[in-house]
């Protein structure tokens, strides 16, 4: 048993008088990964920010929060500045915005080193270069004078980790460090964190909502809900036994597969959506006053079809061209070459003012990822949901409009009185229901879904997946379902297509393809996808192997899970 690095004891937190955390207990040990799990609003990020003492104004924390022997809640701001970045590091969720866009990565990594150690610039830069090397950004390919915008999301997250770990902190807090990344990058970043914990012996608080990730990473686990600890203990044990009803609920929701009649229905033989030899080039970067580099081929000779009433998944790493393809299918972008035809209309040749285009737009709708950003906050739900109705050939009468809206809201399980309210009055899951209501109000035949459940908590995600299944049954909707989450693809699609570098490299019935991927790209995705059961099995296997060597007999037996047990 190693000494605890962070001991949280009966921590209460209120912001502006509203209680956020209630009596949180948690102990983080050196060289261990402690997972803090919960849905959005459960208080996991707030717990982390309390430990960093970076809470918003009006926050009021009580209890004890000991780092070693020091109480962080009573430490001066000066002392906290000395601890932050030196002894306690933090990695945030969104790598795209976590770095200052006007400073080079070298400056940003070296800054903390110079601040805490007083090292001169060359020394600090040498250390920064070394740290960047450790996180997988060798100086030869990623010189210190690179700016964040010149790096991809995964590379930026490595820089953020380098900043946090540059001074070998005793405690690293990672708040959903891989949620914004695709599965392959996620696996790489998790490996990196695991290595740093093993090599430097630091304690890691891993905040996540993904039980698959947690099962593969964590030694200990604390499950939060609405600011209270539900269950805590040895991670593998807690996740395997699932004693607590909430743990059980989370586990079920994360592996949820909707039951729907259309699942086994055979496919029609004609394509509602037909895509032939589609190519989309983007102009290359400027290289001189008038010259440009080689164009970038985002979509490369893609052909496929979606039969009516069929749900087809499109999976692939970020940057593989999924979203570009979706934009072209939706006729929001023109292809460089190739044909898109929808229900017999060649939409890739149509212009916005063509009558056929209105028909195509009516029959082909879209649901986006972000349920917050896709609504105008100043319009009522009635106006927002009714928006696509202007595509109708004849303007609808007032009563017809109302009926259509009421029908759409009812289909997605929202009360009719939602009409008069504004988007901010609804939760993320409800907003996504409203987005779906907006998509089905024109009675479309195809809905393109661009990561529609990625921003949602697991239990909400399960409900929305059920809704998609139900709408397929009741309205015969076909889906082009874009996702990087293979669990989601498995739950809601008949077939999947794997996209890689602009090409569709593999296509087949969902279950078959994901169980037995043939191409390298598909295998990479499947191997990287976190899976709760697989991770637990792997962990138990490992523990068994190591047991006789280490002579620890108690580890295999999960620690008795009791809420609040330190």
């Amino acid at each position, binding site marked *: 048993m190693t000494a605890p690095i962070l001991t949280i004891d009966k921590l209460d937190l209120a912001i502006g008088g509203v209680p956020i955390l209630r009596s949180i207990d948690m102990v983080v040990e050196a060289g261990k990964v402690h997972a803090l799990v919960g849905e959005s609003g459960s208080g996991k990020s707030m717990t982390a920010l309390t430990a*960093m003492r*970076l809470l918003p104004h009006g926050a009021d924390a009580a209890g004890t929060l000991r780092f070693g022997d020091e109480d962080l809640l009573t430490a001066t*701001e*000066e002392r906290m*500045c*000395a*601890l*932050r*970045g*030196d002894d306690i*590091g*933090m990695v*945030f969720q*969104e790598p795209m*915005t*976590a*770095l*200052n*866009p*006007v*400073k080079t990565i070298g400056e*940003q990594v070296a*800054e*903390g080193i110079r*601040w*805490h150690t007083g090292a001169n610039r060359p020394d600090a830069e040498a250390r920064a270069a070394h740290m960047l090397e450790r996180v997988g950004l060798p100086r030869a390919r990623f010189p210190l004078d690179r*700016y964040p*915008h010149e790096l991809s999301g995964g590379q930026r997250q490595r820089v*953020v980790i380098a*900043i*946090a770990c540059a001074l070998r902190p005793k405690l690293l807090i990672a708040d959903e460090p891989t949620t914004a990344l695709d599965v392959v990058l996620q696996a790489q970043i998790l490996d990196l964190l695991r290595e740093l914990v093993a090599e430097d012996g630091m304690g890691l608080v891993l905040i996540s909502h993904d039980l698959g990730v947690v099962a593969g990473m964590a030694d200990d686990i604390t499950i939060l809900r609405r600011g209270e600890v539900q269950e805590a203990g040895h991670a593998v044990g807690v996740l395997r036994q699932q004693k607590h009803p909430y743990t059980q609920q989370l586990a079920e929701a994360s592996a949820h597969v909707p039951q729907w009649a259309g699942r086994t229905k055979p496919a029609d033989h004609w394509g509602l959506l037909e895509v032939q030899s589609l190519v989309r080039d983007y102009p290359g*970067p*400027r*290289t*001189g*006053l008038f010259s440009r580099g080689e164009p970038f081929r985002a979509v490369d000779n893609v052909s496929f079809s979606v039969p009516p009433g069929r749900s087809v998944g499109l999976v692939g790493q970020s940057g593989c061209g999924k979203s570009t393809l979706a934009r072209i299918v939706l006729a929001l972008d023109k292809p460089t070459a190739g044909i898109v035809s929808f229900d017999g209309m060649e939409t890739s040749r149509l212009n916005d003012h063509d009558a056929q285009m209105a028909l195509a737009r009516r029959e082909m709708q879209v649901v986006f990822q972000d349920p917050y950003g896709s609504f105008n906050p100043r319009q009522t739900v009635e106006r927002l949901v009714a928006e696509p109705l202007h595509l109708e050939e004849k303007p609808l009468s007032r009563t017809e409009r109302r009926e259509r809206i009421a029908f759409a809201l009812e289909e997605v399980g929202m009360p009719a009185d939602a009409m008069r309210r504004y988007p901010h009055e609804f939760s993320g899951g409800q907003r996504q229901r409203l987005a779906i209501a907006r998509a089905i109000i024109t009675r479309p035949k195809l809905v393109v879904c661009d990561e529609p459940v990625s921003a949602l908590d697991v239990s909400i995600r399960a409900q929305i997946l059920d809704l998609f299944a139900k709408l397929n049954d009741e309205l015969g909707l076909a889906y082009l379902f874009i996702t990087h989450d293979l669990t989601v693809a498995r739950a809601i699609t008949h077939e999947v297509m794997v996209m890689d570098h602009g090409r569709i490299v593999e296509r087949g019935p969902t279950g078959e393809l994901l169980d037995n991927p043939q191409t390298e790209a598909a295998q990479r995705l499947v191997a990287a996808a976190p899976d709760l059961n697989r991770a637990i099995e792997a962990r138990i296997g490992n523990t068994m192997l190591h047991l006789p060597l280490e002579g620890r007999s108690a580890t295999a037996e999960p620690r008795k899970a009791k809420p609040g047990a330190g």
Partner: protein
Amino acid sequence: MLAYTARRLLIVLVTLLVASAIVFFVLEIVPGDPARLMLGLNATEDAVRALREQMGLNEPVLTRYLSWLSGMARGDFGESLTYSVPVTELIADRIVVSLPLALLALGLSTAIAIPVGIFTAARRGTRADTAAMAGTQLGIAIPNFWFALLLVYVFAVTLQWVPAGGFPGWDEGLWPGLRALILPAIALALPQAAILARVARSALLETLAEDYIRTARAKGLPANIVLWRHALRNAMIPVLTILGLQFAFLLAGTIIIENVFFLPGLGQLVFQAINQRDLIVVEGVVVLLVGTVVIVNFLVDLAYAWADPRLRRR
């Protein structure tokens, strides 16, 4: 960065060319024959015809535009109709007043606005912030000619620290010249400073809410250091935009202020020239103003690229 600068320069040249064409042809279609205007109502037809010939007004319009353009490129803006002296000379006499005045006002407004913006952003929601913001409201609301009169009353008439108006010329030395410009500069700068301070404050507040500010805080940097090192440069883009626009306003704003303070500047010159239909002078001054604004915006573009590396590749 070199390609970026070259591209911007190209845009500057094209803009200047288009602007000069617009100025020339708009004044061309304004009713009234300059030759007849110069000679007065009692002039004979012959005299008018002779003068038109002499002024080259009988040439085709494109030829005249090109010769006007090539003249300007050589620094020859033509000859004033009322004063019968080269426009270049008139402008040169006046610009030594107007340009220092505009620069002084710009410097003053920046020197007031940026610290106020930083101070209020760092102390958001405090009484000092509220008071400073109320002050900027007032600064925007007060018309600058009225504020100019107030300044004259307090500092020139009552306290007698500075002259109430007029300009002694730079020959008298730097200090008397500056003394004459300080009140007009303050009058010009105040409303600009008020706007700029508000822009700086809101840009800083927006930047301070960014994720990378939290990253910097997590490194252990204290809040005020984070503001200087990480927030300020990111907040500069909107500030630079407003600064560039304000320079144009300052030049235009001098017309009123120069009249209030009896300053022999470009504002007065163009005001009189318009009254006297001295179109050649108007053309010259307008082209000069357009040129200045275009060049200032070019400098702002370069400053953008300095502030934000993402723009350098465009």
